[in-house]
């Protein structure tokens, strides 16, 4: 069934379709309508779930952790200051190996106080052990929530997933979303039945004092789980494609076959890049695009394979790792042989500034005419 939905409604409908048992969330612009619609869905009896009202984002994730540890499938959602207030518990959820799915509406960090798109909030959670996905459109938001429960709950993964959508460009923009058939979703996402859970009939300790004798091995197992996720994401995406007719992987290539210049991007900018690639090809420039969906696990092998065909590669980041360069730029650079490529690190769209097709055409022009550069600020007023 097709419906016109904002990205926030798509996220809420995804959690509903995944039949979550517990929702614990605190409202924050521009995430608020995710929680709002979920509270209505639960109040109307359309989703059999406990909706836990909490006093902060820290409490929202704490309640989610408790629920998930007790064997409930849990959903929460936040943005920017809320996500970073959760930070301590973001580590706890991952190290507790609790497959929570959280929607994060990417919003810039204050100050200056901002409610607009920027991925600094989620990039700041890089080393917590969560998987991170960046969505291009509302259909992808809805589908990614469904996929994330399957992938996160896989016994060889057991890691939470952060599903990212850009503030306003997705959260408050209406698009057509194809809602999947509930019977098919129910067989795609079987009931959650974890091997390890809090159980009063079989009491055990969770997250107790862990000496240096064991802590190291738990960290090793986190990395193994992230590596396992690489092929489980691909397999699950292929299964999703067979059932629902839409394919999702770690990355998505666009018009790469005969291209000379490759533009790497993520989130909503990836959609604009596709349009720019079409236009610039009409002007005779062979450009292609690579959208990276997963920041964690980072698809090292896939990115290396695709990039190996290109000398000229530009990476567009909607964040800066201050003192270094764009966060995706450094990731891409880390898996490439830098002697073989000319790499351009573009910073664009910080704090919700628009990234237009003209901006992207200008990036391709820079790649054609200038030397490689780690840090190129697009449109900064100097």
């Amino acid at each position, binding site marked *: 069934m097709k419906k016109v939905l904002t990205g926030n409604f798509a996220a809420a409908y995804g959690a509903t379709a995944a039949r979550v048992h517990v929702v614990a969330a605190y409202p924050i612009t521009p995430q608020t309508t995710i929680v709002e619609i979920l509270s209505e869905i639960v109040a109307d009896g359309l989703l059999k779930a406990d909706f836990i009202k909490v006093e902060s984002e820290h409490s929202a994730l704490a309640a989610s952790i408790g629920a998930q540890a007790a064997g409930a499938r849990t959903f929460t959602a936040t943005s920017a200051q809320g996500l970073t207030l959760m930070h301590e518990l973001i580590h706890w959820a991952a*190290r*507790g*190996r*609790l497959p929570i799915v959280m929607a994060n509406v990417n919003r810039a960090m204050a100050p200056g106080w901002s409610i607009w798109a920027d991925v600094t909030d989620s990039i700041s959670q890089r080393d917590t052990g969560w998987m991170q996905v960046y969505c291009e459109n509302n259909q992808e938001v809805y589908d990614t929530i469904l996929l994330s429960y399957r992938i996160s709950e896989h016994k060889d993964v*057991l890691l939470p997933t952060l599903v990212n959508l850009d503030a306003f460009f997705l959260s408050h923009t209406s698009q057509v979303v194809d809602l999947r058939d509930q019977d098919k979703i129910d067989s795609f996402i079987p009931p959650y039945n974890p*091997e*390890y859970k809090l159980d009063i009939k*079989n*009491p*055990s*300790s*969770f*997250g*107790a*004092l*862990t*000496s240096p*004798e*064991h802590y190291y*091995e*738990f960290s*090793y*197992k986190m990395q193994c*789980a992230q590596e396992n996720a690489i092929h489980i994401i691909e397999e699950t995406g292929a299964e999703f494609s067979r059932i629902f007719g839409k394919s999702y992987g770690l990355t998505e290539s666009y018009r790469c076959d005969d291209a000379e210049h490759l533009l790497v991007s993520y989130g909503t900018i990836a959609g604009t890049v596709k349009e720019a690639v079409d236009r610039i090809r009409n002007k005779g420039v062979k450009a292609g695009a690579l959208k990276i969906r997963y920041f964690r696990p980072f698809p090292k092998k896939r990115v290396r394979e695709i990039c190996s065909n290109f000398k000229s590669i530009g990476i567009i980041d909607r964040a800066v790792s201050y003192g270094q360069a764009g966060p995706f730029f450094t990731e891409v650079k880390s898996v490439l042989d830098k002697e073989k490529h000319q790499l351009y690190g573009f910073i664009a769209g910080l704090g919700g500034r628009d990234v237009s097709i003209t901006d992207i055409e200008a990036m391709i022009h820079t790649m054609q005419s200038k030397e490689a550069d780690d840090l190129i600020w697009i449109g900064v007023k100097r």
Partner: protein
Amino acid sequence: MSKKKNTDKVIITGEKDMPPMPASLGSMLSNKTASWRSIRPVILVEKCTRCMICWKYCPEPAILPTDPPTIDYDYCKGCGICIEECPFDAIETEKEGK
């Protein structure tokens, strides 16, 4: 591993014997936390009414719900909360190492 009773000491030789998360490692069986106690609470059985308020308040929890309640001195850190909370002054302080 989680199937074992929590009184069993778990033998772990490598990561393959471990659950994905720190669950029921049994580490607290060997990691007794009472070594830094400087005062020792002692329950006066004749004054104790078995109200169990000490058991409810003990944050460790190192007071066991027996009749009368008993203090597990392997884990009691001597915080004194039970002494403070007992409405019948039935818990006394002894200096540790007397």
